[in-house]
């Protein structure tokens, strides 16, 4: 091995940083998601479900109030809100599949 001058300490530091950084990048996302635990995930799906229901029922109630179509707005809003809630909950669960690209949905 031919030594051309002393080894550049800065370049060595750079290489070490790159190595550490690529290691870190592989480790970090999984670490963060797994520490949330099952409870956190359950809470997340539950909130997703409720939030869509709140919006659906709220819109239906407003429609009833201002369009004068009482019970129908609330009924339609309830069902549409439930459907939207289940859809967003399903999307949230899909994100837990484990494969990196589907992880985006979180």
């Amino acid at each position: 091995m031919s030594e051309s001058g002393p080894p550049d300490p800065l370049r060595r530091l750079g290489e070490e940083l790159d190595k550490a950084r690529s290691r870190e990048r592989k480790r970090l996302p999984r670490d963060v998601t797994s520490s949330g635990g099952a409870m956190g995930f359950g809470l997340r799906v539950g909130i997703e479900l409720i939030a869509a229901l709140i919006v659906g029922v709220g819109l239906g109630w407003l429609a009833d109030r201002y369009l004068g179509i009482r019970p129908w707005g609330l009924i339609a809003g309830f069902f549409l809100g439930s459907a939207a809630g289940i859809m967003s909950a399903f999307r949230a669960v899909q994100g837990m599949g484990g494969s990196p690209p589907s992880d985006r949905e979180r």
Partner: protein
Amino acid sequence: MAEVSAPLEQFVIRPIIPIHIGTADLSFTNSALLMTLAVALTMLLLVGATRRGALVPTRLQSIAELSYEFVANMVRDNMGTEGIEFFPLVFAIFMFVLFGNFLGLIPYSFSFTGQIVVTFALAIFVFVLATAVGFIKHGFHFFSFFMPPGAPLFMAPVLIPIEIISYMSRPISLGIRLFANMMAGHTMMAVFAGFTLTLGFFGFFPILINVAMFGLEVIVCALQAYVFTILTCLYLRDGIHLH
């Protein structure tokens, strides 16, 4: 026996410097104090740590650089290179929520992220911004976001309202998630601390639980700041890229 305060008392907003202009109550409250503190500490950390800009960073500089890179990677991974123009905003939200969460863990302090007004205001801001970005970048083509690609056309009357409701539920779930996590944790700790006072000799048992719970709270604080930030990224991405 010792007096036990209500577990929810810690969330009461108390004015520190009363300011009344007309009928509006603009008092400087404990919540405002902690928010100011969060911003001030963030500035202090980032400006103070990077002022000298050593090539081999000190510990403090490492903290600043790591948080910067963490958010920068998150923005780049989720929004692509166009999203980097939103980096200052996303980074500000991350640091604000993170410091708010952690400052709230200090005994006798106040957790402003446990106030639904604060989290909901942040969430609405992100939602309005993402929608505005969508309209600016795509014009009326933005409405195609509400029709899932590949769905048969006759399903549109059902799917479009569902998609719109699902879209509008985003700020609510974003705001409630942070608020509920912070409030639930703090309330639980207060309840167990109350048990300690009423149980007398056996009071050491709730203390053990509280020690474990405090560790969990530290994780939850960091995690919820992360979740809030990454969801901000995802909503902004939908505005930039549609689908």
